[in-house]
């Protein structure tokens, strides 16, 4: 075993790239769940984003257009979820599952003639001489635009949820829908906004997968990333910055164990593969053990249907 042949800077950079799809999906779902909506259709919205982003990027030749198309596609699918659950009062769990099935099937249909096509490559942001600085250059200035966008996004979500009036209203709706309604907040409208935001983020996560991480379209390309994103929201106990940490952990451990194998470390890969899930269990146990958050920080009205007459 020769650990020195692993380049730590390169490893960290690839771990960040590996965490991006689940980060985007999870931060969107976090906002939706904060408003009290449990959308289990993340996997479906991601894969629709992946295929629509891919198709748009190939057709227009612009990966940026692909990202926007993915955003729209994810948002459109989530809008369907919103209509069904918020206006027609369908069960959220069942609708979310159906959304995943629908997304997987529809993406296979849309992507049928796009197998084996190479998407246009994503532009790197040029920082000039900054990226040539030792260590810091590779660590801070060597990523694609979406990585920097994700940093902005997490700060924005943190600020919005914790520091803005709109975020306060959104959290109020999520914690106690009846009280929020009594105060005059428009529960359904706020939730629709949160759902669509979640869908757009999941779409971007999907596009990251099909345009950057594995630049190709294959059916079922997300392979369960949406479910990991859902677990990540719980792991983070609905706190934006913990999503970053969790995504890095969940996405990074896979890469770490592949790297250790490639240099011949004698660690059974199954132990490392289960590490993020073990950490989730430990984290949840630790959080609930402190007594501070007996409900682990889950929004009070999460998953509950709302009707104004209620």
């Amino acid at each position, binding site marked *: 075993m020769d650990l020195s042949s692993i380049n730590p800077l390169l490893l960290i950079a690839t771990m960040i790239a590996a965490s991006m799809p689940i980060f985007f999906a999870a931060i969107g779902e976090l906002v939706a769940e904060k408003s009290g909506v449990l959308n289990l259709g993340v996997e479906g919205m991601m894969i629709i984003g992946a295929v629509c982003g891919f198709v748009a990027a190939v057709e227009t030749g612009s990966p940026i257009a692909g990202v926007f198309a993915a955003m729209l596609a994810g948002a459109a699918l989530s809008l369907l979820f919103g209509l069904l659950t918020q206006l027609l009062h369908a069960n959220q769990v069942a609708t979310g599952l159906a959304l995943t099935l629908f997304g997987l099937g529809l993406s296979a249909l849309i992507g049928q003639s796009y197998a084996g096509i190479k998407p246009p490559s994503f532009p790197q942001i040029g920082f000039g001489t900054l990226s040539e600085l030792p260590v810091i250059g590779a660590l801070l200035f060597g990523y694609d635009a979406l990585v920097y966008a994700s940093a902005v996004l997490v700060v924005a979500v943190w600020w919005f949820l914790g520091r803005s009036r709109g975020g306060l209203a959104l959290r109020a709706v999520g914690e106690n829908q009846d009280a929020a309604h009594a105060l005059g907040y428009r529960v359904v409208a706020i939730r629709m906004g949160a759902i669509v935001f979640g869908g757009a983020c999941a779409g971007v996560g999907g596009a990251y997968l099909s345009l950057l991480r594995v630049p190709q379209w294959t*059916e079922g390309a997300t392979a369960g990333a949406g479910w990991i994103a859902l677990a990540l929201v719980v792991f983070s106990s609905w706190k934006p910055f913990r999503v970053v940490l969790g995504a890095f952990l969940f996405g990074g451990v*896979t890469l770490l164990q592949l790297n250790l194998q490639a240099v011949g470390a004698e660690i059974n890969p199954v132990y490392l593969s289960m590490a993020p899930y073990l950490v989730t269990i430990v984290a949840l146990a630790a959080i609930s053990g402190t007594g501070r958050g007996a409900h682990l920080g889950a929004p009070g009205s999460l998953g509950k249907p709302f009707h104004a007459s209620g």
Partner: protein
Amino acid sequence: MKFRNWLTAASAVCAYVALAAGPLHSDPLKVGFIYVGPTGDFGWTYEHDQGRLAVEEAYGDAVQTSYVESVPEGADAERVLTQMALSGHKLIFTTSFGYMDPTINVAAKFPDVRFEHATGYKRADNVSTYSARFYEGRAVIGHIAGRMTKTNKIGYIASYPIPEVIRGINSAYIHARKVNPDVEFKIVWVFTWFDPAKEADAASTLIEQGVDVIMQHTDSPAAMTIAEEKGIHAFGQASDMKQFGPNARLSSIIDNWAPYYVARTGAMMDGTWESVDTWHGINEGMVEIGEFSDQIPAEVQTEAQAISDAIVAGNYHPFTGPLNKQDGSAWLSEGETADDGVMLGMNFYVEGIEGSIPQ
């Protein structure tokens, strides 16, 4: 993860119900297939589905085929198989190693239904097994890899530590080392058949470690895409995969299940079906070597073709002694060849491969 499996199974059942609801006319023979990945994986499952389409082509209205894709190995497979058997399928192909026990369990409950399990070793009166001698193809591409590598490091993306996968690694290694004594195999186990992102990560990781030729035993073309991007070489697995790596692809091992599926369906129709164990290789056409890329020098192409020809003619066995096991103990003496029993249960590396097989 359990939730996801349940969901996948639910989706599988939905897909299945939709397919099974076709029109019933003059009682066509219903033939079912279950797949471990999506039919559009352009690898393993894609080729099985080509086989299914060949059955439809061959028998037209006399058969009615249906399939369920992305069925997890294990208990979910048992539910899907039971559903298929209950809905009148008389012949069911189960196309992944992990369906072995589910197939045997369901077959015991439905003695009138015939099952065909791919790549396993458990049989019953109504369960046949079939597989292809992929290790013959591995011998040919192992030779090419050994000749083509400049860094003397070959990467191998392995799925699960089962005999079929280990056999492939050994066969490729033996033939790469034969032409290049300095060759080193870097093997990464991904514990999945189909996860493009993980397969791509494995490929990138191997490339960072100096590998310049990649082989894979997983189902998606993700590694081929990465190889193309990074300017190294790779081989198509199960399908040709040329469109994913026009410059990267050197050759490929293509699985051709169509003749077998057509023959077995035919046997069902004329009542001659019986439980058999089929293990066909290059000779019978179940394993095909994809066209050699121009990037392979002519002499290497000739050598590789010669290995393939010798296997077809029966003059050469990829596991021919003298060969030692990894720990240095003797396995095959000079001129001795491995018998099928040993190959089917292969759970050791041959001498020279570094690392251990995960348990």
